[in-house]
């Protein structure tokens, strides 16, 4: 190993380092809409029918989705509905929020701000407060607050990025609330990067026509979350950790009226009755769609879409999945982890093995990912690692050539730290990347107030579908969790004041779902929600046994 790389890769790195001066002013042309379509159809996993199938039952029957999503929808509950005693209510609240990530905490705070007494709120989450994708978001949050920008331009960028399939009123809500969210964050004390003249540092992102990416180094999501978390504690919002929801409950009028929680440590269930339930459980990266590695948090197993679907909520746009163009491809220990788009925003080019640019670095994410897959799958212009992983170079040292020494230290501290842990210095050498599973573009359909199609159930964040159409732009997810978390909180408070008491709790909707799943005659009986992914080695799993009931 020479400075973190094996000799076999060093030869290619030398070529990259030698061609840098020549490339510094060389700008690749971006693709036309027609060229984008072509590369997507040929190389993006969304367009490969082998990875997908139609949903077999329910309100979205016939929708073509990734096999892994169809699998969890076509699964039985992980408990026996007949064993659950719904007459014993453990928590009786006005607002139940399921999932304490970015959207859930924003929703909880705005429920409080909107006048719901804190003892009438319950925030329940699978792992710890803040075990979520929000803390991992690095690059930034979009908000059109500069004079040369406007919410209308942001709207156009987002619609184009989403292939014009986004739900327009959701996009309007997203871009209109952007500046308001930044203002709220400043009141909370967020340390957004500022230039010497006091203006915010704002970068470009793939598919944006203005610089509107606000950032806090490359710890933007973490900085947002640290503040939201601190406020949740300061506001004494009741919290249940290590307690994932395993099912939504309804009342006899068909309204969602709470949830069944499961304590991961004591293994007991508890019954929550709630006037309004907000679903903020995040996305599905840990299902490893199409076999890809993922940037996502350990708990991102798509539980929310399963529970919402059994409760009758309409889903949309789940045919499209976001593969982030740049996941780490080397070293082995960090394969699939996120290399923030900010690396390209700051000027890094994407290169083949000989140090030539292979595509415009700031295409919308799906186009950029497909362009890289094209190189690794249909040419020999890629670099192969000792373990057989293919990738292309991201020329990080170019950033310092363009913007001066120290730019990486100041703006990409997390990235630099991650590589230096494995002896790679990204200010001196390029880093190897390959697309990685990143984001659930679709999900539960919402309206601009946060309502789903089922009474009593609201949603916000990555669980939802419609905001991003068929492809999300960088920086619109940190914005989304705040905008729609806030809106769901405000809506839930209105519902709370209306004072409709839930009726008798029931799981009859689940029993009906079971009857439908029975008709599918599954070859292998599956169970969902998944809760946690399985990473134990096969040797161990082959020997697992369940002991009979005992004191163990």
């Amino acid at each position, binding site marked *: 190993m020479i400075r973190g790389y094996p000799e076999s890769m060093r030869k290619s790195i030398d070529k990259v380092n030698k061609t840098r001066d020549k490339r510094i002013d060389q700008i690749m042309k971006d693709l036309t809409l027609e060229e984008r379509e072509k590369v997507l159809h040929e190389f993006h996993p969304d367009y490969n029918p082998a990875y997908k199938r139609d949903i077999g039952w329910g309100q979205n029957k016939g929708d073509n989705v990734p096999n892994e999503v169809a699998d969890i929808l076509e699964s039985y509950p992980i408990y026996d509905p007949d064993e659950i005693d719904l007459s014993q209510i453990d928590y009786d609240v006005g607002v139940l929020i399921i999932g304490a990530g970015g959207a859930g905490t924003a929703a909880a705070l705005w429920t409080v701000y909107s006048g719901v007494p804190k003892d009438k709120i319950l925030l329940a989450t699978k792992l710890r407060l803040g075990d979520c994708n929000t803390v*991992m978001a690095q690059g930034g949050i979009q908000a059109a607050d500069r004079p040369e920008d406007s919410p209308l331009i942001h709207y156009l960028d987002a619609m184009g990025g989403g292939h014009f399939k986004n739900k327009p009123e959701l996009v309007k809500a997203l871009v209109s609330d952007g500046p308001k969210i930044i*203002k709220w964050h400043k009141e909370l*004390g967020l340390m957004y990067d500022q230039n010497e003249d006091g203006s*915010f540092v704002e970068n470009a992102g793939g598919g944006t*026509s203005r610089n509107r990416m606000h950032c806090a180094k490359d710890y933007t999501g973490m*900085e947002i979350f640290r503040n939201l978390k601190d406020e949740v504690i300061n506001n004494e919002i009741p919290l249940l950790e290590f307690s994932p929801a395993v099912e939504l409950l309804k009342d006899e009028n068909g309204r969602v009226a709470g949830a069944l929680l499961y304590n991961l440590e004591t293994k007991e269930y508890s019954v929550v009755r709630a006037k309004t339930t907000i679903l903020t459980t995040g996305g599905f990266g840990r299902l490893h769609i199409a076999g890809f590695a993922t940037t996502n948090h350990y708990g991102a197993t798509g539980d929310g879409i399963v529970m919402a679907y059994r409760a009758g909520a309409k889903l949309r746009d789940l045919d499209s999945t976001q593969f982030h163009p740049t996941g780490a491809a080397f070293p082995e220990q960090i394969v699939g982890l996120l290399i923030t788009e900010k690396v390209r925003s700051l000027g890094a080019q994407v290169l083949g093995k000989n140090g030539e640019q292979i595509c415009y670095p700031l295409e919308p994410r799906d186009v950029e990912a497909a362009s890289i897959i094209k190189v690794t799958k249909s040419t020999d212009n890629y670099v192969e690692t000792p373990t057989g992983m293919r990738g292309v170079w991201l020329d990080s040292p170019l950033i310092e050539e363009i913007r001066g020494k120290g730019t990486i230290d100041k703006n990409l501290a997390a990235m630099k730290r991650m590589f230096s842990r494995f002896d790679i210095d990204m200010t001196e050498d390029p880093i190897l990347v390959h697309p990685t599973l990143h984001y659930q573009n679709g999900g539960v359909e919402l309206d601009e107030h946060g309502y789903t199609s089922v009474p009593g159930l609201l949603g916000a964040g990555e669980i939802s579908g419609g905001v991003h159409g068929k492809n999300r732009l960088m920086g619109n997810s940190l914005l989304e969790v705040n905008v729609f978390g806030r809106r769901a909180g405000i809506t839930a408070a209105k519902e709370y004041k209306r004072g409709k008491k839930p009726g008798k709790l029931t799981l009859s909707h689940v029993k009906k779902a079971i009857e439908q799943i029975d008709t599918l005659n599954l070859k292998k009986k599956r169970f969902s929600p998944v809760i946690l992914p399985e990473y134990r080695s096969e040797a161990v799993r082959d020997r697992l046994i369940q002991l009979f009931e005992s004191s163990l």
Partner: protein
Amino acid sequence: MAKAISMREKKEELDTVTIYIMGQGYKVPSSLTIMKAMEYAGFKLKRGVGCRAGFCGACATVYRKLGDYKIYANLACQTKVEDGMYLTQLPFVPANKAEYNLDEIKPSISTMLRFYPEIARCLSCNACSRVCPQDIQVMDYVQYSLQGQIDKAAELAFDCIQCGLCAIRCPAEIPQYHVATLARRLHGRYHMIAPDTLEQRVKEIEEGKYEKGFEELMSLSEEELKKRYVARDFIDQKKA
């Protein structure tokens, strides 16, 4: 302590190392991170696991190496296994977080001391800085807090992922990472003032300045919208 080797393990031909998870020995592939090695060994993790990418602070791991007196600490998801590691993970860090209303406090020494009086107990031993997996100069930001240099404390503590190792190691029993949060929030709120352009844009939106524009954009057919999209101008994006 020698690890007992099962017949099954003897058959394996992988490049392996032996690690000790809570004192119990396991043979695991040498290329894995501590976290993945624990899973390989058969642990289904609930505690001590989170983002798996070095951002959430859930997987703080304390270890010694065979024959080495030193205590090491790092993130399980970002550290490769080594032969002879004796590992334990912190399932949870008990550390009191003060409750405050940011609107009602000011960035000053007295604020820091009011909510975290224990910072005055700092012995300047630097154990916190040495244990930090993010290489933050933790002791220095505690000292800055004590001197009322909130800006410097906030900036120095910026990369904190709140794993809690500092608080566990501190002989003066200071919850450093919570002190850091207070410093950052005070700095972000009272020193880093947002530009006027932000407030102006919020006002414009609230006054409905863009409503007509939205109405028009939302009334366009997909084809018309595509034309607008293709025709949109780009500004020079090299400057931040």
